């Protein structure tokens, strides 16, 4: 199964405003992707529309989010269901600075429905870190039955290595994500480990064209992200 677990929608201020759930789903299907995750910065308001659109179009959409921790490390979180993500969102909203988004600087944060209509603009500042450290947020994700995956761990910005020097051991990370360029350059495959964690990659798509660059291919067909991480552990073992 072809899986891309890192796609932003127009709800991320830094993503293109045309990244509606419907367009993302259509583009992913055209690219041969069979499961995708929507991962907006500290936000999940476009997840429901993406899941609905995906169900109608026959592609699995995983509820996800890309959280910025207190250390300004990006951590992806994935769930089998939407409800625990929305519960985590409440915790996130309580721990974000109470500031408005600077739209002219960061960009708009658009909420779409499943039919491509813009139904709202999220005016909360989300391009910043929460007042929650990576240890606690990892616990909050796993306590809700989710999977915590530090994003693009070797990147020079917002990564474990840039912010915290190196990948900490013995954390409850389900995997670590390696940026697409590093993945290709260093010959990563599903089953490669980084500091004892299974490695994955994703497109980190901010534009529709980025989606074609699919993440990983794993043998089997998966109904939910739990099965993906099980399959990943199987190929890593």
């Amino acid at each position, binding site marked *: 199964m072809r899986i891309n677990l890192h796609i932003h929608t127009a709800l991320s201020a830094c993503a293109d405003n045309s990244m509606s759930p419907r367009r993302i789903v259509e583009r992913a299907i055209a690219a041969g992707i069979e499961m995708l995750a929507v991962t907006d910065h500290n936000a999940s308001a476009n997840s429901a529309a993406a899941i609905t659109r995906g169900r109608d179009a026959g592609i699995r959409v995983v509820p996800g989010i890309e959280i910025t921790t207190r*250390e300004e490390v990006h951590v992806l979180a994935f769930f089998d269901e939407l409800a625990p993500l929305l519960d985590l969102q409440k915790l996130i909203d309580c721990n974000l600075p109470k500031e408005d988004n600077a739209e002219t600087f960061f960009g708009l944060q658009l909420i779409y429905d499943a039919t491509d209509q813009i139904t709202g603009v999220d005016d909360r500042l989300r391009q910043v870190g929460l007042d929650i*450290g*990576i*240890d606690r947020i990892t616990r909050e994700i796993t306590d809700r039955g989710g999977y915590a995956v530090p994003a693009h761990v070797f990147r*020079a910005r917002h990564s474990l*290595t*840039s*912010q*915290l*020097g*190196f990948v*900490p051991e013995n954390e409850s990370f389900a995997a670590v994500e390696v940026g697409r360029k590093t993945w290709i350059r260093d010959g990563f495959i599903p089953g490669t480990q980084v500091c004892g964690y299974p490695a994955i990659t994703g497109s980190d798509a901010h534009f529709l064209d980025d989606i074609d660059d699919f993440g990983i291919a794993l043998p089997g067909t998966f109904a939910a992200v739990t099965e993906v991480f099980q399959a990943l552990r199987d190929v890593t073992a």
Partner: protein
Amino acid sequence: MTVIELIRELQLDPLHVVDSGEQTVDGVYCGDLLSDVLANCPPGAVWFTVQGHVNIIAVAELRDAACVVVANGVTPDEQTVERACSNGVTLCGSKSTGAELILKLAGKLCAD
């Protein structure tokens, strides 16, 4: 200046002090990106940061820092204090900002 003199001078909150604070403080560094601290913190320095994550102890060890000060009222993670104790790294806290502490320290280190 020794670590214990530094603690008194800046009224730091000692969380773990190695060798009764007799080590000499040879320099100052201020940084929160641990990749930068790993590359640039001079050995023997007092290092000011707002990071409370356990990785600061590993970085302090690798750079031979004389003392880590978690400033700005940030409470280091529980694991951070545990690792400071088990790995023999001097760790202090302070409610003041790193800038305030460094200004207080200005000139004092060179005066030795």
